């Protein structure tokens, strides 16, 4: 044979075709004028306020956790552009399937804050969702939300409803079987789903480079035969504009899309004992601090004359009051009852369970 059939080096570099979409520079300047989102000053300020809200919520949640007033908490600081700007695009009737770090999106989608706190503490009332609230509670099993999202999306398609299912996972989550099955099912059924991978570089202590030999995570979409796009996850305008275009494309009946956001978490994986100093350097932290999505947006809005420090300070005070109100409410919730747990397990209560309910109700002094 005179010529080699396979160009292995070229095949390995398929990920090079997935270029990172950026719109804002680190100092808040437009890199691509033509890509600037068509958002009114009011909408831009609303988006920024949601990002500020999320940062304040993260700071407060961390403190409340340290004081023992909150339970499970996965820090979000650094991911505001990725989380908030993508969620900002969605319609209230779109269905969100969040992972455990995606509480801010869930609250902005309509979950009362005090319920998010109840979820953190481990109280069933945090997960009681009104009939018309299209959402699931944060998913703990990494990848499970992806296959379920394919089903929710197919449901929209079968009903002829013009909405999308959107779901989030992290960089580590892309190694799961359910991640691949989810995007592949949605692709095969041309279901209106948006799969978002928030690549913050680490799955607890394991760096992204140890998850896969693929040079982007967006290229994993190729395995499902669907479009994949990589975006600067510290750039709210880029995340917004990409997600908006994706949502329109998905709603036209073209099937799902995978979005990879390149982002970072300033804090630990969760507040349950993870110490990022074991696996991350201060240099890396500092590098990403310079990319802070809030700093960038603030400069952009300042140049537009939309933002002032005074406006932000007033808003932060407002948010802190909201958080205080929510946490106070949570601390006055009635204790959970095992009899209620038993009633919630089945719709049609089996005979044996009925006896268990009676036993617990007697104990609970009903």
């Amino acid at each position, binding site marked *: 044979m005179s010529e080699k059939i396979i160009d292995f080096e070229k095949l390995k570099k398929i990920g090079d075709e997935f270029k990172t979409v950026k719109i804002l520079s680190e100092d808040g300047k437009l890199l691509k004028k033509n890509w600037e989102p068509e958002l009114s000053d009011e909408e831009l300020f609303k988006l920024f306020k949601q990002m500020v809200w999320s940062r304040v919520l993260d700071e407060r949640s961390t403190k409340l956790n340290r004081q023992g007033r909150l339970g499970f908490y996965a820090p979000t600081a650094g991911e505001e552009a990725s989380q908030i700007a993508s969620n900002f695009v969605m319609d209230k009737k779109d269905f969100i399937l969040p992972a455990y770090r995606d509480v801010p999106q869930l609250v902005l989608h309509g979950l009362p804050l005090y319920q998010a706190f109840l979820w953190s503490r481990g109280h069933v009332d945090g997960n009681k969702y009104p*009939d018309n609230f299209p959402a699931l509670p944060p998913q703990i099993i990494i990848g499970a939300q992806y296959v379920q999202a*394919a*089903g929710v999306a197919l449901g929209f398609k*079968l*009903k002829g409803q013009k909405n999308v299912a959107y779901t989030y996972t992290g960089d580590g989550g892309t190694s799961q079987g359910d991640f691949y099955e989810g995007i592949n099912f949605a692709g095969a059924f041309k279901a209106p789903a948006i799969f978002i991978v928030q690549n913050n570089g680490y799955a607890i202590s394991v760096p992204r480079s140890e998850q896969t030999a693929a040079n982007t995570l967006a290229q994993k979409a190729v395995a499902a035969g669907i479009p994949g796009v990589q975006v600067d996850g510290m750039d709210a305008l880029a995340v917004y504009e990409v997600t908006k275009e994706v949502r329109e494309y998905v709603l036209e009946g073209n099937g799902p899309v995978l979005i990879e956001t390149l982002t970072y978490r300033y804090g630990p994986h969760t507040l349950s004992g993870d110490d990022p100093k074991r696996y991350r350097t201060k240099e890396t932290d500092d590098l990403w601090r310079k990319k802070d999505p809030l700093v960038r947006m603030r400069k952009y809005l300042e140049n537009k004359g939309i933002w002032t420090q005074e406006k932000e300070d007033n808003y932060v005070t407002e948010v802190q009051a909201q958080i205080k109100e929510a946490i106070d409410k949570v601390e006055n919730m009635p204790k959970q009852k095992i009899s209620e747990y038993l009633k919630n397990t089945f719709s049609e209560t*089996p005979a044996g369970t009925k006896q268990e309910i009676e036993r617990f109700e007697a104990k609970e002094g009903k």
Partner: protein
Amino acid sequence: MTKKTMIKAITDAMDEELTRDEKVLVFGEDVGKNGGVFRATEDLQKKHGEKRVFDTPLAESGIIGLSTGLALQGFRPVPEIQFFGFVFETMDQIAGQLSRIRFRLGGTRKVPITIRAPFGGGVHTPELHADSLEGLMAQIPGLRVVIPSNPYDAKGLLISAIRADDPVVFLEHMKLYRSFKADVPDEAYTVPLDKANVVKEGKDITLIAYGAMVQESLKASEELAKQNIDAEVIDLRTVSPLDEETILKSVKKTGRVVIVQEAQEQAGVGAHVAALLAEDGILYLKAPIGRVTAPNTPYPFSEAESDWLPNKGDILEKANKVLEY
């Protein structure tokens, strides 16, 4: 009323529910055009269309995750797992996800999903097709596990399962699919979930069985009758949760019991039945509880099935031991 095999009764149940309720969806690997590897969904796609009865990619976790998503959108999914030995691929979506949705959301959501899957030995299937894994399912709170033993029950139980607002794992024994016909009403009817059936009344000993072991127990009871022993045979039908009342009532009457399962001794639901009797029925017992099970090995290579699977002879032997105690 028509004489039908169990597989035909199962097809009819799905056909009628697809007709009755437009929210019912049937899907899985090869269930569409092909009509299922056992013909359980034969002609259903032709009759009800590709939006109601459809094929999926080959991935069990995807299939069950899809079901949960569809159920959250108001549908009544009836997914199929081609052989129940493949359930390990989707254990999280069953045990970690759909069985907990109602509980997890504080009763504000339901997932009316009926997972159908064939299982059971005696037909020389390849590896991991015949394994009895109902014991794993029976340990999952929030799930019902239903195993019919005849065509009449199969249709009535499947209709009940599809109409139920809770998730059901509906296990169909492959050896029973076409081994005999029985009278099945042509119209829709239900057989209640959570209720065992006394298939033969008796006063001397209770044989508690499910699946293919019901037929073996009935055969054993005929042999016992020749010894002037009047055995009562109970078909559990829903193996989780158990119909405790029917079990206790029977053993109170007979005072002796043999629990029969095709699964290995450490698997199945036999130990759960025994524990119930030990806790709530010990004063009824005139002899220790007997159990007939398969040996504690993985499911056998197919040529060894007849030596490994429990049968009428094993039941007779154990019953006589309990009777002679």
